[in-house]
């Protein structure tokens, strides 16, 4: 390698950071350009410094390593680290990404770096793999929060705060009590991973939180609108199948 890999360490535990740093100290191809203690700082550092390689811990305060990936404008090569997380392991295996299980040996880490160098030299597209990874949810667990980024601020939205979600081509707009947030995810993703007891896909373009529905109005034969519980009394179109689903969930 002609140039050293610009490397970032994102890890919340000091001792774990120290160990990684000491392992990487005399590596000929690595230059550690920074360390972050949490996911918020991590997202900022990656988007600003655009490192070649990131050592990313999965379990961190505020947002997890997985959630971080969703917020990256720029996708570097990532080597995940985790102590014990069954879900993460499943995700890694299905998506063939590099990961290190703590505690790991220096040799094991060097092998992972070799792989990354191989990916870079062969210009393999790892960004796509990361997207898949962030869309992967093991088991049938529903999500309990969504992380979003508006310009430079990261918000954590617990699902109970979501009023409704609107589809916008490749994005969705998430409406909460305090405002709205854009996110690069599909409607299908939210339809699948939001608990259908609380969220209904009422239309191709809308998913609504059940508790937020004030009333359902018929405005033409066989077509309905949902009126939400908010100041503006937002009206959302309901499709035929959407109407059936509402009937099922609300039992009327």
């Amino acid at each position, binding site marked *: 390698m002609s140039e050293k890999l610009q490397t970032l360490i994102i890890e*919340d*535990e*000091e*001792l*774990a950071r*120290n*160990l990684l740093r*000491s392992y990487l100290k005399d590596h000929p191809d690595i230059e550690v350009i920074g360390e972050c*203690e*949490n996911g*918020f700082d991590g997202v900022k550092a990656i988007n600003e410094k655009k490192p070649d390689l990131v050592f990313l811990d999965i*379990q961190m*305060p*505020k*947002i997890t390593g997985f959630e971080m990936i969703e917020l990256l404008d720029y996708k570097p090569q990532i080597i995940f680290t985790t*102590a*014990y*997380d069954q879900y993460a392991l499943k995700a890694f295996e299905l998506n063939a990404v590099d990961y290190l*299980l*703590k*505690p790991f040996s220096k040799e094991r880490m060097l092998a992972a770096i070799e792989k990354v160098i191989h990916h870079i030299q062969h210009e393999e597209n790892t960004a796509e793999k990361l997207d898949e990874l962030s869309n992967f949810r093991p088991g049938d667990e529903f999500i*309990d*929060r969504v992380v979003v980024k508006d310009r430079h601020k990261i918000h*954590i939205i*617990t*699902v*109970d705060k979501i009023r409704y979600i609107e589809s916008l081509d490749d994005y969705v707009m998430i409406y909460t009590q305090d405002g709205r947030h854009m996110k690069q995810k599909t409607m299908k993703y939210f339809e699948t991973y939001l608990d259908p007891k609380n969220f209904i896909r009422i239309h191709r373009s809308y998913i609504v939180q059940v508790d937020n529905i004030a009333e359902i109005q018929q405005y033409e034969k066989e077509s309905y609108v949902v009126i939400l519980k908010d100041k503006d009394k937002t009206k959302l179109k309901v499709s035929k199948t959407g109407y059936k689903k509402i009937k099922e969930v609300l039992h009327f």
Partner: protein
Amino acid sequence: MKHPLTNNLRLLLSYVLFWTVIATINIILQVFWYNVPLTFSLLDTGTSYVLYPLLGSSIWYSIRYNSLEEVSVGRLLLFHLIAASILCAIWVYLSYAIYKPFITKESHFLEDGIPKKIFAGYLMYAIYLIFFYAVNYYQSLKEKIKKEVEYKTLLREAELQALKSQINPHFLFNSLNSISALTVSNPEMAQEMVINLSTFMRYSLLHNQKEMVTFSKELENIKLYLGIEKVRFGEKLNAEFEIDSHCMEAEIPNMILQPLFENAIKYGVYETTEQVTIKTICKCEGNLLRISIVNDYDACSIKRKGEGIGLRNIRQRMEIIYNQPDLISVIDHKTSFEVQLIIPQKQAMS
């Protein structure tokens, strides 16, 4: 417990059949042997073997709320004497009211029957009493056996769960990783941590053999656990203890506190970037040891979803050990989370 006659169709049918047979025999005897007119016989039989069985079924309630074990003999006798008199009075009065239109000057059959009825009323009450006590005893025995079986399965399950949840693999691997890091930077501390981890694990293995330990033992183990976690989290983890010194000798189920501290770390320390205080307050009041564990948490990033498996396990274990619900309560103060435990003691702590 429900009334055995309304609750058990077979018993009800046997009851009805029994009295029908008795009544029929009585009518046949009276009419054919003693030459009693049929109307009189029907009236006598009706009040004795239909009306009394109807009234008598209510005796169940007098035994239902007067358990033989809980009420003294004197009070029991007095109660039943009064109850028997009331029932007897009602019965005799009703019988007389039914007889009245049929009483004639020529026949004293019905009138003569009244004093006998008073005696019979008390006798029947006694028979019913024995019958219902027997039913009650049989029912509670059956229930007890059923409950015991349930308890046993629950206990086994709880033991199994306890075994599984003994050491959180996440904690173990992270601690090992800290040790791995310390071997490079601070070998002495690494050694200390290996020893602490071993002591902690040994204590948690003891869990299988011994149910109760002294509170001081359990506390020592908690401090060891927090010490290990403190190596990982550094300044972020701050533990405070406020403990009445005379609580130390209290008895407490082994390893009952550790999962609570593990939760406090998982939801408190792990989810925020600021310092989190875990405060433990212990007080002794009479023969109750009260333990309260409070940790701050970041309400924005997590929504706690009811009770996790850790809390459920503890609740279950406490219920099995003390046979008493509600010894554990969980309070969400929005910025802090509190778990309160009440551990009953055999003797008052002083």
